[in-house]
């Protein structure tokens, strides 16, 4: 009897112990589940809506990391840069940030210690072999790498294929042919070159396109401050070619009276047949849904001997905040630099990846053409002027270009005024 009672008590104890163990394991499991690290990603680039499914898939596959993805692009680039800097400084911003401008903006973030050094990550992940050296140099500061080039841009001429067919025009292969093309377009009652410079943007971009197209890497020396602006004769040739768009009646009238968006409307409405733009234009034109098919070619070089094919560079880059959890952030970087994510961006919003991928053929033909040509010419792309110029000088450049287009300055005076503005800034800083 006593033995049976003892056995019953032991059975009860064992049962209680088992239940306690199970409860313990369950609670441990829930604690482990609760310990998933949130990684907040801010995107300053294209809408991340298309990424929702990818993010969901990532979160399902990772118990230890939970990605929270937010699009924060509002207002101008300057305003966004301000927002990012203040958020990072106050440790109230994202852990991983996409779409960051390289050049002065990245340098400012690095100089204030807000951005994590990714040099070791590059080596450990093998990413260093996937980024072209000229792009890598743009995110390298004093020998250390602080950002991952996320998307690549190159500027060219988007044209109305239907109008070209109607006028029996061919894609030009030289600047002379381009001039003939503009003349033919003008004779047919269209405007050949779309220009809307009110408000600044994209004045400096357009002028730079023509200066790159004529001076090549010599223009980089000018932007970097190692060669005076007025000494660049090839830059002057490029400016004259740019000014010729207005002076010869190739561009729409009143380029200073309409802004960038209003000028694009002229293209969508078939009034203008060509527009100088970057790959971001593909996604915008899909939304605008014009009644014609759009083609693309690179602006033929003003100077055939130039060593730079076009203007462009890193559209946006990824950075990791200094306060972020390193392991979690690096796992997210692994994912963001996968071919799967890059192809999705290419397919959905025509964002060209900066790291090497196999461009799939089953995407939008225009996207495929630009992605392929950009990848093939990646070492012949001159970077955005703001990569080299201090933001203040770049802002002034927009206004000074307006002065030239409005006839207030000659191209020579433009170069002199840029020199004065640039050198004054450098002297003050």
């Amino acid at each position, binding site marked *: 009897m006593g033995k049976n009672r003892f056995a019953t008590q032991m059975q009860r104890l064992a049962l209680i112990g088992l239940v306690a163990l199970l409860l313990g394991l369950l609670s441990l499991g829930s604690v482990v589940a609760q310990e998933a690290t949130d990684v907040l990603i801010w995107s300053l680039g294209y809408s991340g809506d298309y990424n929702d499914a990818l993010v969901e898939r990532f979160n399902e596959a990772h118990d230890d990391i939970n990605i929270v993805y937010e699009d924060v692009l509002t207002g101008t680039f*300057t*305003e966004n840069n*301000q927002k990012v*800097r*203040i958020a990072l*400084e106050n440790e109230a911003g994202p852990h991983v940030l996409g779409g960051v401008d390289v050049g002065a903006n990245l340098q*400012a973030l690095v*100089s*204030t210690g*807000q951005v994590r050094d990714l040099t070791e990550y590059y080596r450990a992940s093998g990413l260093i072999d996937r980024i072209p050296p000229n792009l890598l140099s743009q995110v390298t500061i004093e020998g250390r790498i602080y950002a991952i080039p996320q998307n690549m841009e190159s500027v060219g001429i988007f044209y109305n294929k239907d109008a070209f067919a109607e006028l029996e025009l061919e894609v030009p292969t030289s600047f002379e042919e381009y001039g003939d093309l503009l003349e033919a377009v003008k004779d047919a009652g269209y405007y050949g070159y779309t220009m809307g*410079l*009110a*408000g*600044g943007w994209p004045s400096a971009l357009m002028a730079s396109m023509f200066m790159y197209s004529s001076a090549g890497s010599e223009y980089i020396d000018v932007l970097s401050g190692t060669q005076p602006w007025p000494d660049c004769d090839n830059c002057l040739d490029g400016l004259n070619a740019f000014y010729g768009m207005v002076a010869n009646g190739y561009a729409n*009238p*009143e*380029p*200073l*009276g*309409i*802004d960038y968006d*209003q000028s694009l*409307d*002229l293209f969508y409405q078939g*009034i203008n047949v060509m527009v100088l733009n970057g790959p971001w234009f593909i996604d915008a034109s899909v939304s605008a849904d014009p009644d014609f098919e759009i083609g693309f070619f690179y602006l033929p070089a003003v100077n055939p001997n130039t060593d730079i094919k076009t203007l462009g560079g890193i559209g946006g880059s990824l950075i990791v905040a200094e306060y972020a959890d390193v392991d979690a952030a690096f796992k997210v970087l692994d994912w963001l630099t996968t071919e799967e994510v890059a192809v999705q961006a290419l397919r959905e919003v025509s964002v060209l990846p900066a790291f090497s991928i196999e461009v799939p053929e089953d995407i939008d033909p225009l996207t495929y053409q630009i992605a392929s040509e950009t990848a093939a010419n990646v070492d012949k792309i001159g970077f955005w002027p703001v990569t080299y110029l*201090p*933001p*203040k000088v770049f*802002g002034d450049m*927009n*206004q*000074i270009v*307006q*002065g030239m*287009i*409005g006839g*207030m*300055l000659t191209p020579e005076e433009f170069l002199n005024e840029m020199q004065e503005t640039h050198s004054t800034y450098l002297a*003050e800083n």
Partner: protein
Amino acid sequence: MAQSLTGPGGRAASPRFRPDLMPYLFILPAVVIYLVFNLGPVLASFVLSFFKWDLLTPTAEFNGFKHYNFILNDERFWGALSHNFIFLGLAVVIPVSIGLLLAVFIYEIRRGRVFFRAALFLPAIFSGVVIAYVWKWIYHPFAGVLNPALELVGLGAFTQSWLGDHKIALYSTFIAYTWASFGYSMVIFLAGLQDIPTDIFDAARVDGANFRQKLFRVTIPCLYDVFTFVVTLRIFTAMGVFGVIYILTGGGPYYSSDVIDIYVFRMIGNFEMGWATAAATVNTMIVVCLSTGFIKWREWRSWSS
């Protein structure tokens, strides 16, 4: 005679109660808000103007008067300031005059007063951004309504590149500013008119005064203090104009419509806080001098007459 220690209700007054402090207590919240959110930032901006700071770096480098030296030698600063003064000169005349005439018109009419008052005040309640975008499309060289309207009424010779021509861009932005601002002047003048005793107008009418004589001999002198207020308000808004110009032209083309606040905004955008605050401080001092000088001059004229 011993003073009563009881109030009107017969209750003993608390020895701690100080009725003379009550007004100060009532204005205390407003004073605190003013000090923290108005005067505080102005003083902070003044102090910052002596430092080189990019808004983010924890430390700022003392630069003395270097920023003032830079902006006072910067022809773009003087260009922007001269545009502010042009704007000011126009703003104290045109929107004020339009506002006064419309207020007199509304005051005089018997029917539709409420409708006209509401309709004419309507532009003033719109956000400056909305107004700027409306005018951007009005001025559009291809799709805008202004040039076709001018052609329609036989004024085709006056069609312009309203925002693209550096000679008139500033004045085009001023038209948008005027459209947005005359309504404020109008309602303030209207309130002033309603305070004038009607027997003054009746006396003028009995004396055979015509509209012009009533306006210049009766209405305007009776609105002396209202004028001071309206013009002072215009000084503030004209010297601080930003949104309309920024959206319409961005200060261009080629700085032709640049004003101080856009100049400052550009500096802040470039994280040049020292230059930006130095320019803002100079502008603040000019506004204070102008408005104080104007008010003192009006007081002196009022006293001397």
